[in-house]
């Protein structure tokens, strides 16, 4: 099953549960509190997911390591390499 199908399956399960509860499609005579909780749920979930995404990406951007030492180490090694390679007879 492709990831696209997995997503469509997941969304249709959520949406049909939502439809059942909100419109009482099976005529279960559910207490009204179910309907009240259920009907704004898709929007609520979207907002929660959006906030989660923004927070995660923001946190990861802020904590993305800046590898200054790695760059300095490399620069030093480049100098060393050039010297050594010239000694070995390489013409750059």
């Amino acid at each position: 099953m492709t990831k696209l199908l997995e997503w469509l399956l997941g969304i249709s399960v959520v949406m049909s549960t939502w439809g059942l509860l909100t419109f009482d499609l099976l005529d279960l005579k559910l207490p009204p509190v179910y309907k009240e909780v259920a009907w704004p749920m898709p929007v609520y979930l979207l907002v929660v997911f959006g906030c989660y995404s923004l927070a995660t990406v923001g946190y990861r951007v802020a904590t993305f390591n800046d590898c200054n030492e790695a760059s300095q180490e490399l620069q030093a090694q480049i100098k060393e390499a050039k010297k050594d390679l010239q000694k070995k007879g390489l013409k750059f």
Partner: protein
Amino acid sequence: MQYNMANRKTSKSRVSSDKYSVLLPTYNERENLPLIVWLLVKYFGESGYDYEIIVIDDRSPDGTLEVAEQLQNIYGADKIILRPREKKLGLGTAYIHGIKHATGNFVIIMDADLSHHPKFIPEFIQKQREGGFDLVSGTRYSGDGGVYGWDLRRKLISRGANFLTQVLLRPGASDLTGSFRLYKKEVLGQLVKKCVSKGYVFQMEMIVRARQLGYSIGEVPITFVDRVYGESKLGGNEIVSFLKGLLTLFATT
């Protein structure tokens, strides 16, 4: 006791028979090639693993091949192997071309522009041996991994794209677009044949297909030092083609 010793002996001889072929596809890397080769020789020499470096030059006009020949004279034709091609062709075919000539049972792919540091290779090898992994991928996104030379915009795009990919594809690896990896040779051969994308998406497709085919993936945090010489670009075109590639993988894997 005797059994133990015998056992150790066989496992040691198996370990020492491992050979690592480093594939370096180059195009106009005259400045960088000697430096990356020097670093590879240094770190392989220190760690004692058997290796070879296969330079696949796509007829660079700056004379990369000529420098590679000089390096071959310095380090020996058993260590530096030149397999040039007639013209600039894709990365996937460069890997196929390299595998054909590789005598190692493991293949390491990395960029020749010094953004990937050979000091991590012994860690890749250790990781692979610990878990018997089919492939080990370097990751900029976890542990001590990171980048040098990226501004806020670049970081934001990178993290955002990575998050979106993680949500849509759940690939089980944290760095999908990185190209510093160690593969079992036959695994790389299988994967390259299955992959059709280009550019950033190619590396992503490799790892997504690896997961799909049930190969095991290990990860090693790496530092990515953005091109010391030359420029790297990340413009609108790259972003659009990345999104297209992502959606293609989303619909087909």
